[in-house]
C-alpha cells in the first residue's frame, strides 16, 4: 500500500497536523545546503479547477460552465483529481514526490489582491499589517551562513517574502545579467543622508557583494543537459536550475507564474497557465535529478487567494479564499495533506480553510531547514510531508 493511500484511509487531518518525533534528538545544525524554490501563482489561482472534487455533484451545480467534466480529469483519489492540464505532474505524483495541501488559507480573509498577497508574503493575520517578509522574519531569528552570496534570489516578480530587515536579495532576470551588474556598480562607501538615499546605498552594497560571489559560481556552472520549455516559467526554472547546479549557496529562489486572475473565460486561461507550469516543473525535476540535487530542493506554491466556489457570469470566477497548494521535491512524501473544503458549507459563497497558510512556512523552517526556532511553528503545526 502506498503511503498516500494509507493517509487517505486513516483520515489525513489528524495524522498530518502532528509534529514528527524529532524533538527528542540532540539539536541538529540547520540544513542550509537545502534550497526552497518559492513559486508564486500570481493573481489568485482557482483551487477547485486545479484539484477537482470530481465526484461531488455540488461542484457541477456551482459551475455549470466552468466545471471540468468527470471523464476528463486525472483521478488521484476517490474524491479528488488533477486538472488534465497538469498531466505532466503525474510522474511526480506516481513517484510519491508531489504533496498537495488542501484548503490552505487564513481567518478573516481579505479579497484584495494587494492586501492578501501582502498577508501571505509577510505571514500576518488577516487584520494585521507587518512590514517584513516571512522569510526575512525566519532569517532574522536564524540567519543563513554569512559566507552565502545572498539570502534569496528573485527571478520572478517582486521580492515580497524576502523584503525587509538586513536581507541580501538579488533580483535578476537571468543568470548572466548578474555578471554585468557586478561590473557596472561600485560599492558605495558613503554615509546616510535620508531614507531614499540610504536605500539606494544599501542596494548598491548588496549588489556588489552578492554579484561578485555569484559571478564566481556561475562561471563554473555545469551544463544542465535538459531542454526546458521556451516559456517564461520554463526560463525562470531553467535559471533556478543553473544557479542550483552551480552550487550557488542560496536558501531561497523565488519564481512567479501567472496571471491566474481569471474573472472571465477561465477555462482556457487557467489551463494554459497550469499546463505551462507542469511541463516546466517536470523539466526542472529532471535537471535536478540528473545533477543529484533533487533531494536538496523543495518547491512550494503560494497565491494570494483561491476563487469563489460558484462561477460568475463571465465564464470566470471572482476573488475567493482557501485553495490547495503544492509541495514538490525529492524529499517530499507525496499525497494529500489537510482537508478538502466542503462545497455545501460555504461561508458567504466562499470555501472555508482548514490549514492556516503559515503551517507551510512552519514546515519549511522546521522540517526543511531544520531550524530550532522560527516565528511560525509554535503557533502553526508544521506538516509531516518531508522525509
Amino acid at each position: 500500500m502506498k503511503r498516500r493511500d494509507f493517509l487517505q484511509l486513516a483520515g489525513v487531518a489528524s495524522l498530518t497536523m502532528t509534529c514528527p518525533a524529532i524533538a527528542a534528538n540532540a539539536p541538529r545544525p540547520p540544513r542550509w545546503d537545502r534550497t526552497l524554490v518559492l513559486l508564486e501563482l500570481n493573481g489568485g489561482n482557482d483551487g477547485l479547477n486545479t484539484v477537482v472534487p470530481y465526484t461531488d455533484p455540488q461542484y457541477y451545480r456551482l459551475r455549470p460552465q466552468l466545471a471540468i467534466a468527470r471523464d476528463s480529469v486525472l483521478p488521484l483519489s476517490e474524491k479528488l483529481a488533477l486538472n488534465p492540464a497538469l498531466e505532466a505532474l503525474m510522474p511526480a505524483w506516481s513517484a510519491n514526490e508531489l504533496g498537495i495541501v488542501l484548503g490552505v488559507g487564513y481567518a478573516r480573509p481579505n479579497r484584495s489582491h494587494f492586501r492578501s498577497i501582502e498577508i501571505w508574503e509577510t505571514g500576518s493575520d488577516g487584520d494585521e499589517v507587518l512590514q517584513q517578509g516571512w522569510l526575512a522574519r525566519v532569517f532574522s531569528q536564524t540567519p543563513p551562513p554569512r559566507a552565502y552570496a545572498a539570502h534569496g534570489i528573485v527571478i520572478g516578480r517582486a521580492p515580497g517574502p524576502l523584503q525587509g530587515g538586513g536581507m541580501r536579495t538579488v533580483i535578476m532576470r537571468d543568470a548572466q545579467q548578474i555578471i554585468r551588474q557586478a561590473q557596472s556598480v561600485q560599492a558605495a562607501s558613503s554615509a546616510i543622508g535620508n531614507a531614499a538615499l540610504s536605500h539606494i546605498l544599501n542596494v548598491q552594497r548588496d549588489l556588489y557583494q552578492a554579484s561578485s560571489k555569484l559571478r564566481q559560481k556561475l562561471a563554473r556552472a555545469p551544463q544542465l543537459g535538459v531542454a526546458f520549455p521556451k516559456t517564461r516559467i520554463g526560463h525562470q526554472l531553467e535559471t533556478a536550475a543553473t544557479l542550483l547546479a552551480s552550487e550557488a549557496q542560496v536558501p531561497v529562489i523565488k519564481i512567479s507564474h501567472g496571471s491566474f486572475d481569471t474573472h472571465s473565460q477561465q477555462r482556457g486561461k487557467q489551463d494554459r497557465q497550469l499546463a505551462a507550469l507542469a511541463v516546466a516543473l517536470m523539466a526542472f525535476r529532471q535537471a535536478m535529478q540528473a545533477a543529484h540535487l533533487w533531494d536538496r530542493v523543495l518547491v512550494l506554491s503560494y497565491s494570494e487567494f483561491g476563487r469563489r466556489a460558484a462561477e460568475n457570469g463571465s465564464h470566470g470566477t471572482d476573488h475567493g479564499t482557501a485553495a490547495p497548494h503544492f509541495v514538490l521535491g525529492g524529499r517530499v512524501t507525496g499525497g494529500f495533506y489537510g482537508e478538502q473544503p466542503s462545497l455545501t458549507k460555504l461561508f458567504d459563497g466562499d470555501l472555508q480553510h482548514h490549514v492556516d497558510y503559515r503551517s507551510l512556512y512552519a514546515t519549511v523552517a522546521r522540517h526543511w531547514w531544520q531550524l530550532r526556532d522560527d516565528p511560525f511553528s509554535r503557533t502553526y503545526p508544521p506538516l509531516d510531508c518531508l522525509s
Partner: protein
Amino acid sequence: MLALLVLPVAVRAMSYDEARHLLARTGFGGTSAQIEELRRVPYAQGVTQVLHDNTRGTALTPPPAWVNEPPPDFRQRRNMSQAQRKQFRQQRRAQGIELKSWWYGEMIATPSPVTERMTVFWHNHFTSSLRRVHSPTLMYRQNELLRRHALGNFRELLHAVAKDPAMVLYLDNQTNRKDKPNENFARELLELYTLGKGHYTERDIKEAARAFTGWMVNRRTGQFRFNARRHDKGTKHFLNRRGSFDGDDILDILLEQPQVAVFITAKLWREFISDTPNKQELTRLAAIFRDSNYQIKPLLRAILLSPYFRAPANRGTLVKSPVELIVGTARLFDIRPNGPRRLAGLGRQFGQDLFDPPNVKGWPGGNAWITTSTLAARQQFLGRLLRGREMSQQQGPLGAQLNMRKRQEMLPAAGLPADLSNKQLERLVLPIPAVQPVPDDLDLHARITHLVLDPVYQLK
C-alpha cells in the same frame, strides 16, 4: 513654525535651489537656462508659470496614424485563419511599441512637463494595460482622455474614466450584467480609485457592481455604450444610501465622501512632496480640493505653495521614476532620439513599462524603483549616455538610436558654460550634495559624469 521660516522668501525672487526643486518635482528637471529664467520671478509667480503657462490638453507630438482608424472588432478574430491571427497579434504588438515610443517622444518634446507628469500620474492611478485591454487604439484614447483632464477636474475625470472603453475592458465590466455581476471594477473603484481600503464594506462593492451592470463597450465602434437590458435597475444600498442607483449615481455618492479628497491628495503628496504626509497639512489641502469641486489646479497650486513642499529637508528625498530618469536626462543633455523606441525599452528594463503597469494598483514607486536589478541597469544607461557618440564600430544600438552627440559637443549643446565651479555643477545636476565629492582635477565632462553616476542623481 515652518511657515514662518519660509514666508518672507515668497515676496522676493526665489533662490536657485528653489527654482531647481520646483522644476525637478513638477516636471523632468530644468536645464541650467530654465532654472536661471524661473528664479527671476517671486516663488508664487513661478508656481503660476509652471501650472498655467503652456499647460496642454492635447499632445504636441502627432500620434501614430492608426489611432484614427476604428479599432479592429475582436469578433473578427473568430473567422481568421491561423496565419491571419498571428499577423493580427504581430501588428498589435508593433502598435503597442509605437504607442509607448510616441509618449516618450512627447515627454521629451513637451513645453509643459507638468502636463505629462500628471498624465503619467493618472495613468498610474486609473490603470489599464495593453496586456489586458489588447487594443493599442483604446489605450491611446485613454491616454488622450487622461491628458485632457490631467489638470482639469477630478469629478469629470472620474466619470469619464468609468466610461472609458479601455477601463471597461481592463476591469471586466464588459461582462458585468444584471443577476450575474462581475465585481472587479467596483472593487478597484473603491479600493484604489476613490476611497482606499477600510472605508467601505464588501457589501458596498457588491451593490456598486450592480449599479455598473450594462456599462459596456460596443465592440464594433470601440465606443462606450449603455446596455439597458443588462442593467440592474433594482434598489441598491451603497454607503448608507438607498436607491435605484446607476453607475453615475455611485460616483457622485463617492464624491460626497470627504475621504476621496484625502485619498487623492495623499497620493499627490507622495508624488510631489515626500513619502510621509503631514496629517494636519493634508487635511487642509484636501479641503481645498473638495471646496473647489475637485479642481486639480488649485490643489496642485496649494501643494506647491505648501511649506512642506518648500522645506529644504524634503529635497532629494524621492526616488526618480524610470520615466523621470530617462526623460529628465535626455532633456538635461538635449538628446533627441532618432526614434524614442529605445527609451520605451529602457523604461521597461528599469521597471516602468508605460501602458503596461504590472497590475491594477500600478507601479508601487518610491524606494521600490531601486532594486539590485534596476539600479545596475540605470547606472549602465547613464554611464553609456555620458560617454557620448563613439567610433561607429563601438557605437552599438543605444548610441545610434539615441542620436548621441560627440563627447565634446554634449555640454555646449546642454548650454553648460565651461567655467562652472564644482559647487555650481553639483547644484545643477543633483538635488542635494553628492555622496562622493567631485575630484578637482577632472575636466568638465568627467565632473558631470561623476555627478550623474553618484547615487544622489537617482533622487529628485
